[in-house]
């Protein structure tokens, strides 16, 4: 995964130098993590940075960090951290709105605690699938409001889905 990250960073840097179209995004959101008939709603923040290698197609890296535990029964569960790479496909703007899909790979760590059973920490590697919308802000043309549904796939029956909102900055 680290090698892949390095490759994507190199690609993004190269593209940025070549075309100058780079972007960054900051998001916060809530996840739904389910297993064993338990449902947790932890909060997490995500940052990403990337560059367009073709019009509407970008490569990016992202990293998440949990800031709020989800509680259910006697357990609490955190998305400790996540990072990965993705390819972004986005539509041309229509009245300032753009749709996007991100397909990528993610490595994430979940942590589960309970006062009466042992602390559990698990690392997962899997796929990331995101779909979302971006709205360009009138006052700040390079700033976009984003809403995204994100799914991290790894080892069923454990499921991780998230809904994120944030802002994205495009270089001119």
């Amino acid at each position, binding site marked *: 995964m680290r090698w892949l990250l390095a490759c994507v960073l190199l690609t993004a840097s190269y593209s940025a130098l*070549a075309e100058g179209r780079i972007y960054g995004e900051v998001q916060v959101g809530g996840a739904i993590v389910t297993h064993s008939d338990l449902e947790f709603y932890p909060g997490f923040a995500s940052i990403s940075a990337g560059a367009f290698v073709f019009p509407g197609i970008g490569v990016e890296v992202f990293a998440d960090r949990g800031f709020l535990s989800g509680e259910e029964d006697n357990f609490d569960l955190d998305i400790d951290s996540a990072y990965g790479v993705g390819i972004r496909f986005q539509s041309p703007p229509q009245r300032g709105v753009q749709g996007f899909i991100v397909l990528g*790979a993610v490595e994430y760590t979940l942590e589960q605690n309970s006062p009466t*059973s042992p602390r559990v920490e698990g690392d*997962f590697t899997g796929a990331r699938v995101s779909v979302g919308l971006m709205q360009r802000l009138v006052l700040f043309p390079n700033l976009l409001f984003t809403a995204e549904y994100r799914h991290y796939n790894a080892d069923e029956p454990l499921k991780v889905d998230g809904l994120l909102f944030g802002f994205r900055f495009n270089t001119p």
Partner: protein
Amino acid sequence: MMLHAEYNVRMRKKRILLGVTVALSLLLAACDGDSRIFEEAAEIESLDLVGLAVVPPANSDTALVINRDEQLQLGLAGISSSGLTFNLSSNGRRWSTSDSSIISISENGLVTGQNNGSATVSVSVSNIVSAQFGLTVNDASLISINSIEGQDNLERCVPGEYFATGLFDDQSVRVLTEAGFSLQLNSTATLESTDQNTAIINATTAGAVTLSASFGNVQPLERQLTVLDTLQSLSVTPNPVSLDVNDTIDFTATGAYLSADGSVTTRDITNQIIWFVDESGGGEASVDSIDDDVPGRLDAEEEGTVSLQAFCGADVTNVGQSVNVSIDEEDDEDDL
């Protein structure tokens, strides 16, 4: 010159994008992680689990001996902090063996003998580990079927369990996990199931029954069983019953049995008796009988009266009981 440089940049970008796509695809194909640890922690919490025990197959000897390539299904029991013991699924667990060259074990607890010798198996759920369970692999041939184990006497409509043991050429006597069982022709008893190594017999008529055990080409062994005429009466509850069309109700049958000391004991025999519906009263209903999914479950179909009949055995002169079931037209109030 300028056009050529632009072309080169585009081609390089395409190659890079292709490379990243291939790398991502490879990574996606290599999903990794084990969610089982999270589920096990939840299982421990919800069941208040403090201990585990490996459960041998029913009727097994304490010292389990199997042949090479013979398979044996182990079970798993959980122990709660209050000391209660209960069955857990043995599937998808972390089973381990002390010597995989002697015994292999699947994640579902299925043991396979590999080579002669002794080894132990254990299972863990999160940080709870069971005691070691010993097994011996000793490749030997069956000489004869040694015995059919189980009670001498059966009671009508009370299932009896039987299993066979065999004498092997290493002089060991083992439970025959793959023995076949049969009853003599025209028997009033039925062989309900031969799950694992156990035959379950349901006898409906007093008299004698011959049970036969076989294994490969070895001479079969027969055993005479006696079906006692101790069933005194049969009662069905609830009785009487009033239902609406499309209602479903589960009936329970209880048999009263005369013991040797003259006292009467009762047993739930709902699943071992014959149930049927007499529709001469004008109503229509259906009921699950002994070979159906839920014996004693009646579905009311048409308005009128039906008589639910319950008997131990097909002969209606046998002990039985009738229940009048009155069926009214469907009540729509629930739908409002």
